[in-house]
């Protein structure tokens, strides 16, 4: 499926609303940070003395189509990569479960809440990965960083 900028704008609006209603605050923060960092690209080939004096790259805002790719990449990391990491950790360390705890003499558990490996591999995670793969078939990955 080839998305136009208008298609991508509709898609973005829906995806960001869904993420907001899912309370995916840190995922949204990451998307916003990526928007702020923009897209690095090479300057088009041109002749002239002035061009020799400047860097050949510049930063521009992402297009809607590029932002859709950025959102899908963030979802891929959260929904596909994290459960895959959890499975690899469990297998390689031979651990039923891993807990992350802090040294409470120095660190507050409010800031670093206790977590466990099973948080990263919820039930029916296979269905989740299949559902994501279906979406990726409709919108294939595009490389957008050009530097």
């Amino acid at each position: 499926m080839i998305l136009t900028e208008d298609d991508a704008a509709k898609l973005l609006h829906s995806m960001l609303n869904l993420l907001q209603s899912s309370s995916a605050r840190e995922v949204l923060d990451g998307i916003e940070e990526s928007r702020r960092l923009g897209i690095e690209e090479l300057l088009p080939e041109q002749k002239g003395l002035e061009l020799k004096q400047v860097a050949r790259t510049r930063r521009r805002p992402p297009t809607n189509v590029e932002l859709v790719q950025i959102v899908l990449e963030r979802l891929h990391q959260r929904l596909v990569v994290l459960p895959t990491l959890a499975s690899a950790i469990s297998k390689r360390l031979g651990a039923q479960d891993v807990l992350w705890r802090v040294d409470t003499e120095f660190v507050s558990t409010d800031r670093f809440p206790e977590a466990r490996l099973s948080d990263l591999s919820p039930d029916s995670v296979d269905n989740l990965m299949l559902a994501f793969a279906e979406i990726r078939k409709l919108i294939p990955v595009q490389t957008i960083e050009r530097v």
Partner: protein
Amino acid sequence: MANNQELDELLSAISNLLNLPAAQQLLQLNSNTCERAYEAYVLSLCVEAVRRAGGTAELKGILSGPNPNPVVLRGAPGSMASRNQNFAFASCALRNKQFEFHVDVEYQGTSGAPHEIDVSMCDEAHAEAVRNTNGRPKADGNKLLMAFECKFYESTPGVGLGRTFVGLISDCGALRFKAFVANLTSEKLGLYFSKSS
């Protein structure tokens, strides 16, 4: 250009995905948990590498000894000698070398300044001395052998953490190996490290 039906199908597929209970759980994870999981993943790769090279690697809890259950890892940088939790490390042997892998431990750099290292390989005798004295491990000589900076990016990678890593390893003496490991590739970081290495 997508037609309306295709776009509706795509929107419906995305809505179904994000409304799955498993997706809701993963989307609400604290980013610190994602970071810690990525460090644990790199630790597991180190353990696997030792075994593949013909060595042995065994998890130990600082309080319970071999094969702790559950395995407790640091949720924030801390002391290698801390006994406030049963923090685990990987005790390894390869040929005639004994060493340990630790997660999120503070080392003293060659300047004397403390540094947090996400995943580190430390000489076993030095690590034992640290535990026996309740001291801090040193990053010089043959004590800290490898250092890994691990980053689970939730946004486009910039070069900021790369700069921090270059500063960190410049204060770590002669490391046998060092690496900046991340979940996303970045040409910008690649360019920066190619210049600074």
